[in-house]
């Protein structure tokens, strides 16, 4: 009898332990859920429950359904407004403040961390006194109309296009490095702005993340300065970056940014629609005149957004050779000699505007005939590919770049006049970087014919 009781007791204890362990494990799983997983949204702000371009009453309706359990949080991850892994009254209160665009509200912004993973940063609404790093982030901020809210910048490479930065303090970095002295200037600026809450955020293009060392990230964390990091060199990510920054700066910036984003998506949708039944062309992307963009480089995305097929997807040897997210300098004609079947060469180049006719000719000829300090000639590298090569100005709004790339790839479907019309539409939006520019003062695109004409 005693033996039977002992067996029963053992079985009961084992069962209780097993159930308890299962409960604990399940709870652990819940706690381990990363609130930054599965986020796909246009406006990168928590509270934008439906993932569209703005936060409005529809988001509150959806939020209530998630809170009531009618819809799953995993399908609407941005319903977790404060990124604490659960949806509750605190989230609701925050969302209401976002709907009211209430000053001082903590806004939970979805962005990248310094490893490129999705994360959430908190900024105060409306965002003010930002510091920017790298042209690919500075232009989206200026396109969002935030010139007045940029307190400082580490470097400025294009006098006219980035002229809007001049209201901020030059922190004396360079386009490639942030020196210790420049970082010291940044901390001094934060101290100078202390009465206004200090630097509101640092806006960083992910391609320049190497300058934000662990020590510098630790500085920002200790000071409570959020780092908003985006891969804004990508033409499509640039659109969501403008949209998100516009929301954060608030007021007219938000309206400008929504217009900008809607117009941009319309263009991309139009291109997609026209190419639905069309055989797609392959392309190789280039940057810095003679550098081949590696497979995962953001410079590859412009051609893809314009309906092209990146060459690495159809040529395994090329794919193997150009693995990575950076770029590789060509050494001569042999760099492209094995890839003669590619349909187009998309060369992405940043060219400032506000140019005269003579400036434009000089820029086109100079770019086409460029010879590097190591003696590598652009003309030699692209020999035999002249009719496939075209340049797109990287400083243009993302959708404009995509439009010109679409013209370069599918000239029969997308005329130059159509692309020029899109550029004009963006100029007419009164965007700061494009202020009072015309097709005659900007080089948005050029190809071999333009080179021959410029050369005379």
């Amino acid at each position, binding site marked *: 009898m005693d033996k039977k009781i002992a067996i029963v007791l053992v079985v009961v204890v084992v069962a209780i332990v097993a159930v308890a362990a299962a409960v604990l494990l399940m709870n652990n799983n819940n706690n381990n859920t990363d609130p930054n997983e599965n986020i796909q949204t246009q406006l990168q702000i928590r509270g934008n429950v439906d993932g569209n371009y703005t936060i409005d009453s529809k988001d509150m309706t959806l939020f209530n359904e998630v809170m009531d359990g009618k819809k799953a949080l995993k399908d609407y991850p941005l319903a977790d407004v404060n990124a604490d892994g659960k949806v509750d009254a605190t989230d609701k209160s925050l969302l209401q403040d976002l709907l009211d665009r209430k000053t001082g509200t903590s806004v939970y912004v979805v962005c990248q961390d310094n490893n490129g993973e999705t994360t959430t940063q908190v900024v105060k609404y409306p965002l003010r006194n930002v510091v920017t790093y790298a042209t690919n982030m500075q232009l989206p901020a200026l396109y969002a109309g935030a010139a007045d809210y940029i307190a400082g910048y580490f470097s400025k490479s294009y006098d006219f296009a980035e002229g809007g930065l001049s209201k901020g303090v030059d922190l004396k970095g360079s386009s490639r490095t942030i020196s210790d002295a420049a970082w*010291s200037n940044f901390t001094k600026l934060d101290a100078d702005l202390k009465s206004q809450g200090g630097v509101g955020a640092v806006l960083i293009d992910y391609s320049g993340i190497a300058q934000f060392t662990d020590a510098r990230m630790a500085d920002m964390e200790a000071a*409570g300065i959020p780092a908003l990091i985006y891969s804004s060199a990508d033409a499509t990510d640039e659109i969501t970056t403008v949209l998100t920054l516009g929301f954060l700066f608030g007021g007219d910036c938000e309206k400008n940014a929504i217009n900008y984003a809607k117009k941009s998506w319309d263009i991309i949708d139009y291109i997609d629609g026209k190419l639905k039944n069309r055989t797609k062309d392959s392309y190789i992307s280039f940057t810095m005149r003679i550098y081949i963009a590696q497979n995962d480089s953001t410079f590859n995305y412009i051609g893809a957004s314009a309906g092209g097929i990146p060459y690495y997807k159809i040529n395994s040897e090329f794919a193997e050779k150009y693995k990575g997210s950076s770029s590789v300098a060509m050494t001569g004609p042999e760099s492209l000699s094995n890839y003669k079947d590619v349909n187009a060469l998309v060369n992405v180049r940043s060219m400032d505007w506000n140019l005269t006719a003579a400036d434009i000719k000089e820029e086109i000829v100079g770019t086409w005939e460029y010879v590097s300090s190591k003696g590598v000639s652009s003309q030699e590298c692209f020999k035999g590919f002249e009719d496939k090569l075209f340049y797109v100005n990287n400083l243009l709004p993302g959708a404009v770049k995509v439009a010109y790339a679409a013209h370069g790839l599918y000239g029969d479907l997308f005329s130059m006049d159509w692309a020029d019309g899109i550029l004009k539409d963006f100029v007419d939006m009164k965007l700061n970087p494009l202020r009072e520019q015309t097709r005659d003062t900007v080089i948005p695109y050029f190809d071999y014919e333009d080179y021959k004409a410029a050369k005379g």
Partner: protein
Amino acid sequence: MAEYQTKEQVISEYHRQMFKKTMLFVACVIGVVLFVGFFSLSVYPGIELWQAYEVIWGHITGQEFEPRSLYWWADRYIWNSAIPHALAAIIAGASLAVCGTLMQSVMNNPLADPYSTGISSGAAFGAVAAIIMGVTFATVGGETGIVVNAFIGALVPAAIIILVSNRIHATPATLILLGTAISYFFNSMITYMMVTTDADTLKSAYMWQIGSLDGMTWSSIPLMLIITVIGTVFVLRASSQLNIMTLGENSATSLGIDVQRFRMLCLGLMALMTAAIVSFTGILGFVGLVAPHIVRLVVGSDNKFVIPISMAVGAFFLLVADYLASVIVTIPVGVILSLIGSPVFFILIVVQSKRAGAIY
């Protein structure tokens, strides 16, 4: 030696000598404080020199700066970067100067320095083995593995010499010759490892051997400081015996010192102190050689004064060299030490020889 006619003259000369000693010590301390300020400005140039001192003093006295104010940012940079860097230079300079004084007195040899017994070669062997072969005494690799290896490697030559000395009659010359033999052995092993590795690893190993204070953090300070303080206390307490040792082995024995035992004790202590420094910094030459000579030139040979003033001179010398190396020209401090140290040492030898007819 000058002859004094009256008691007043003797007192006056005594005061003059004391003044010289005090002035040299105070000048070095002021120099150290000044360069700590310069270091602070180098890591946080957004403030004035007086503000740097205000920040340092505020931190020491527990003042809390308002977050994100200028002083908060300056404190963050100065305290996390400039102070550990400068402190490492001060401790290393002082410690190597004490070791140099100790070696020169115990060995009764003006050319003896902390590395005369093969300590530098042992440390370099340990570090290079960690860098090139990945062989470490520590369970962890990387920086910690290199430090532990260098520390143990530095102690090996001293241990060998002490063990051998117990079985033979070891004169100071014998000890230095043993050290030289051990150095040659370790150097051959280092050369073998360096010629068999790739260029990047070779550069890392070579840079370690040159000696540098770059990248010093607070984690490097405690071991350096504790061993330096303990060693210095012992050396200061033994300064009378060290004075006697300079009279020669027979005189020291007749005055009641167990010369052999005392010498081994000093050797062991000096090895420990040097190991605690070079394992973090790499080989820093000339400090232990030059600092005691400068001090003896000015204040004479009494170790009661030579030891503390050498510490101040060594600390100042290394701090200035490190400032020049890391802020002005951006090269490893070992290069600057050699550049400054060798001509200074040359001049010292000439001046001392002209003055006394001998260099010690």
